[in-house]
C-alpha cells in the first residue's frame, strides 16, 4: 500500500504543478484573481501531498518495510530508530524527495506570505515554482522513485551508509536544502520580473527577506557540514574543497553578492538588472551543484552512485531553464536599467566592488571545480585541482572583500562626507594594527606576513562593526540601554553580527591553520607523547559491541603539569553489514583550543597508529558561523527603520 499511495500522491502533485505551470501561458486571457486562487490552492495542496508521501517513506523506514528497494538498500533491522528516520534522505532517491518537499514548502510559503505584492506578480512566481516542481517530480517518478519495489523481499536491509550514522548528519541535509532550494525564490522572482518587464522597489524589500532566509539556511547547512567533517573524518580537517562542498559554497557566494546588491537596489534603485542576473546565477549554481552530485561526473566523497541517465535528465533541465531565463534576460533586461549615477566615494560604489569580487571568486571556484572536466574534454589529460589552488585564489580574492567591509560600514549612500569618514577609519585602522600586533607578538609568535595581514583584517572588521553599533546606541542619550536596543533597527544588528562573524571566522581559520601541532605516530601501550605542554598517555585499547557495529576504543589520559586532566576515547568502528570502518575522533574543545585524538590502524600487538592534533582557536570557525546565522535571523525577523519619534 505504501508504494501505491506514495506514487499516487506524487503523481497528483505532479499534475497540479503542471496545471499551475500551464496557467502561466494564459496569463492574459484568464482573470488574475481566478488564476491566483487556482495557483495558490494547487501549490498548497501539492505541498501537502509531497509531505504525505515523504511521511509514508519515513513510515516505511520505521516499520522496516524491505519490500521497498530504497528501504532495503538503506536500512536494517538493527539500525537505531533516529537513523531509520534520517535514512529517509540518506541516499539519492529519498534526498531528492526531500529536495522536492523543500521546494514545495518554499512555494507554499511565498504563496501565503506575499500579500504586499500584486496578485498577478505572485501568481507568475507560483507558476514558475510549479514549473520547477513539475520537473523534479517527473525526475523522481521516471529515474529515482523511492517507492519502487524489490522482489523477492529481502529479510533484512543492507544498512545505512555508516558515514551517515552521525547526529550531525541528521539535520545537515534538511537545513542545507532549505538554503539551497531557497535560491529558487529569487529565481522565480527574477523570471517573473523579466516576463512582466517591470519591478517596484517595494517588491525588492520583500525579496530581500527571502534571500536572507535562504542565505541563513545555507550558512547553517555548510557550517554543520564542515563541523561534521571535522568530527567524523578523523583527519582534523574541516574543509576540503571537495566538488560537493564547492557545489554548496558557490551558491553561498553568489547569494551573498545578491544580498548586498539588493540592498543597493532597494535603497537607491540601481543595480536592479544586475540583481536579477545574480538571482538567476544563484539558482543556476544550485542546479549545477545538484547535477554534479547526482551525475557522478566528478570524483567526490559525497557523490551518489554514478548514473549518467539521472545526470542527463538534470543537465537537460538545467540547459532548458537556465538557457530560457538567460534569453529572457537578454531580451527584457534593458527595461530595468536605471539612469541614476553614483559617486566613487559612495556606499553603492563600495558594494559594487564587493559584488565584483564575490562574483569573480564564485567563478574562480567554478573553474577549479570543473577543471577536471575541462582538461579531459580538451584532451589535456586527467588533472585535478587540489586545495592549494583553491586556498590561494580564495584568500587572494577575499582580501579586498574583507578589507572593504569597514569602509562600507562607515560610508554613506550617494556621497560620503570624506573628512569625517577618513578621520574615523584611520583611527580604527591604527587601533586595529596595534591590537593585532599585540595579539600576534604576545600570544602567537609568527613572522609570516600573511598571518599578520589576516589577523589585522579580522580585527579591523570586528572593531569597525562593534564601534558602529556602539555609536548608534549612544546617539540617543535620553533613553535607557534596553529601550535603545529595542528601538534600533535590527538590520544594523544583522549587519554587525554577520560582519563580526566573518572576522571571528577569519581568526579561527588563520590561527588554527598556522599554529596547529600534529603528531601522527605509532604508539605502544603505556607510552606517552607531549604535544604543546600536554602529555598524552596511551593506556590501551578495549573492544566494544553495539547493536549494529563493533568497535575498538582507545583509552588516552592527558596530563598538564603532571596532574591528570581528562581521558579521551577515540573509536574505530566496524559496521556489521557494510563492513565499513569508521573513525570516531575524541575531541576536547574549549574556547581557546581543541585536543583531537583519532585511533588509526593496529600496527602490532600492542602498538597503534595514533593521530593527535592540538588546534588553537579552531572553534572560532563555528562561533563565526554562529554569529553570521544570528545576523541572518535579525535580518529576517527584525524591523527595518528607527521608530519615528513622537
Amino acid at each position, binding site marked *: 500500500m505504501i508504494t501505491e499511495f506514495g506514487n499516487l500522491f506524487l503523481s497528483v502533485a505532479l499534475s497540479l504543478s503542471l496545471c499551475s505551470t500551464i496557467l502561466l501561458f494564459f496569463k492574459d486571457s484568464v482573470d488574475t484573481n481566478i488564476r491566483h486562487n487556482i495557483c495558490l490552492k494547487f501549490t498548497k495542496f501539492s505541498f501537502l501531498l509531497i509531505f504525505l508521501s515523504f511521511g509514508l517513506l519515513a513510515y516505511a523506514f520505521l516499520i522496516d518495510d524491505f519490500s521497498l528497494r530504497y528501504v532495503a538498500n538503506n536500512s536494517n533491522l538493527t539500525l537505531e530508530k533516529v537513523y531509520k528516520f534520517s535514512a529517509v534522505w540518506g541516499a539519492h532517491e529519498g534526498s531528492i524527495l526531500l529536495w522536492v518537499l523543500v521546494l514545495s514548502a518554499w512555494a507554499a510559503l511565498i504563496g501565503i506570505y506575499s500579500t504586499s505584492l500584486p496578485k498577478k506578480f505572485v501568481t507568475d512566481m507560483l507558476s514558475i515554482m510549479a514549473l520547477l516542481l513539475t520537473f523534479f517530480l517527473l525526475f523522481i517518478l521516471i529515474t529515482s522513485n523511492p517507492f519502487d519495489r524489490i522482489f523477492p523481499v529481502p529479510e533484512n536491509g543492507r544498512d545505512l551508509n555508516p558515514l551517515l550514522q552521525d547526529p550531525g548528519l541528521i539535520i545537515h541535509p534538511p537545513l542545507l536544502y532549505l538554503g539551497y532550494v531557497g535560491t529558487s525564490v529569487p529565481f522565480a522572482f527574477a523570471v517573473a520580473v523579466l516576463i512582466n518587464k517591470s519591478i517596484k522597489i517595494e517588491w525588492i524589500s520583500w525579496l530581500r527577506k527571502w534571500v536572507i532566509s535562504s542565505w541563513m539556511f545555507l550558512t547553517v547547512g555548510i557550517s554543520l557540514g564542515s563541523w561534521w567533517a571535522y568530527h567524523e573524518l578523523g583527519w582534523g580537517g574541516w574543509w576540503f574543497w571537495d566538488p560537493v562542498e564547492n557545489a554548496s559554497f558557490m551558491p553561498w557566494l553568489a547569494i551573498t553578492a545578491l544580498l548586498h546588491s539588493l540592498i543597493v537596489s532597494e535603497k537607491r534603485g540601481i543595480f536592479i538588472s544586475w540583481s536579477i542576473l545574480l538571482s538567476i546565477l544563484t539558482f543556476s549554481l544550485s542546479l*549545477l551543484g545538484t547535477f554534479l552530485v547526482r551525475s*557522478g561526473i566528478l570524483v567526490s566523497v559525497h557523490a551518489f552512485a554514478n548514473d549518467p541517465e539521472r545526470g542527463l535528465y538534470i543537465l537537460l533541465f*538545467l540547459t532548458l531553464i537556465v538557457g530560457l531565463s538567460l534569453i529572457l534576460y537578454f531580451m527584457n533586461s534593458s527595461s530595468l536599467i536605471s539612469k541614476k549615477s553614483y559617486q566613487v566615494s559612495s556606499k553603492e560604489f563600495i558594494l559594487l566592488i564587493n559584488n565584483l569580487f564575490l562574483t569573480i571568486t564564485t567563478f574562480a571556484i567554478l573553474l577549479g571545480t570543473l577543471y577536471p*572536466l575541462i582538461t579531459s574534454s580538451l584532451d589535456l589529460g586527467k588533472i585535478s585541482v587540489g586545495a592549494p589552488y583553491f586556498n590561494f585564489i580564495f584568500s587572494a580574492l577575499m582580501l579586498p572583500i574583507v578589507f572593504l567591509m569597514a569602509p562600507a560600514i562607515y560610508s554613506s549612500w550617494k556621497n560620503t562626507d570624506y573628512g569625517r569618514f577618513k578621520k574615523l577609519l584611520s583611527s580604527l585602522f591604527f587601533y586595529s594594527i596595534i591590537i593585532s600586533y599585540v595579539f600576534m607578538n604576545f600570544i602567537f609568535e609568527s613572522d609570516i606576513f600573511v598571518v599578520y595581514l589576516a589577523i589585522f583584517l579580522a580585527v579591523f572588521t570586528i572593531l569597525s562593526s562593534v564601534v558602529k553599533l556602539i555609536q548608534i546606541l549612544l546617539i540617543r542619550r535620553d533613553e535607557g540601554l534596553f529601550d535603545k536596543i529595542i528601538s534600533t533597527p535590527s538590520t544594523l544588528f544583522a549587519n554587525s553580527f554577520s560582519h563580526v562573524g566573518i572576522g571571528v571566522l577569519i581568526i579561527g581559520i588563520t590561527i588554527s591553520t598556522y599554529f596547529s601541532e600534529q603528531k601522527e605516530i605509532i604508539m605502544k601501550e603505556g607510552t606517552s607523547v607531549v604535544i604543546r605542554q600536554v602529555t598524552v598517555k596511551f593506556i590501551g585499547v578495549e573492544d566494544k559491541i553495539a547493536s549494529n557495529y563493533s568497535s575498538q576504543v582507545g583509552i588516552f589520559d592527558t596530563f598538564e603539569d603532571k596532574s591528570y586532566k581528562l581521558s579521551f576515547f577515540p573509536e574505530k568502528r566496524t559496521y556489521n553489514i*557494510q563492513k565499513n570502518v569508521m573513525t570516531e575522533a575524541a575531541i576536547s574543545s574549549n574556547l581557546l583550543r581543541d585536543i583531537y585524538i583519532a585511533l588509526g590502524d593496529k600496527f602490532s600487538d600492542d602498538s597503534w597508529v595514533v593521530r593527535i592534533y592540538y588546534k588553537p582557536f579552531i572553534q572560532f570557525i563555528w562561533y563565526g558561523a554562529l554569529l553570521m546565522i544570528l545576523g541572518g535571523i535579525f535580518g529576517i525577523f527584525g524591523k527595518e527603520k528607527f521608530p519615528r519619534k513622537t
Partner: protein
Amino acid sequence: MTSKKSILPIIFFVMILYFLFSGLGKDPTLIPSPLIGKKIPEFQSKTLLDDTSITEKDLLGNYILLNVWGSWCYACTLEHNNLIDIYETNRISIYGLNYKDDKDSAIKWLKQRGNPYKKNIIDNKGDIGIDFGVYGAPETFLINSKGVIIHKHVGPIDKNYFKNIILPLLKNE
C-alpha cells in the same frame, strides 16, 4: 547598447554546458590502472570453500578473469548471474577475490546463488585488493597465461562486455 552586454551570460553558459555534456557518461574513476601490462602482484592466502593455500602462481597457465566481490556488495549480486552466464557460454576460468568479506556469509552467498568461480581467494582484510589497486567491488581483471594484467573493469560486467571488450583483447594477444 545594454543588450549587447547581456548576451555575455549566454555565451558563458554555453561554454560551461559544452564541458558538462562532454563529461557526462565518462567515468571519472576510470583512471588507467598502473598495473595494466604488468605481472600480477604476489600474494599468499587460502581458498574460500576448501581452505587450501593459494598464491599468484596458481593463476598462471591460462587466460583468466579475476573478479573482486563480496557478499556485502549489492552490485555483485546483480553481476553474479552475468558471471555464471559468461562462464557457461565461454568456459573461461574465473577466479574470485572475496574482498573484505565474512567467510561464512560468503560461502552461504555462493551456495544460494551458484558458483561460477574456479577458486576463491580469501581477502577478508582487503590487503590483496590494495596490491591489485582495487577501488571497490565489483571489479574484474583480465589476466593472460603469463600472469600479466591485460585489462581492468570497475563495476559490474555482463555478456556484452565480455563479447565487445574482452574477446577482441583475447584475439589481439
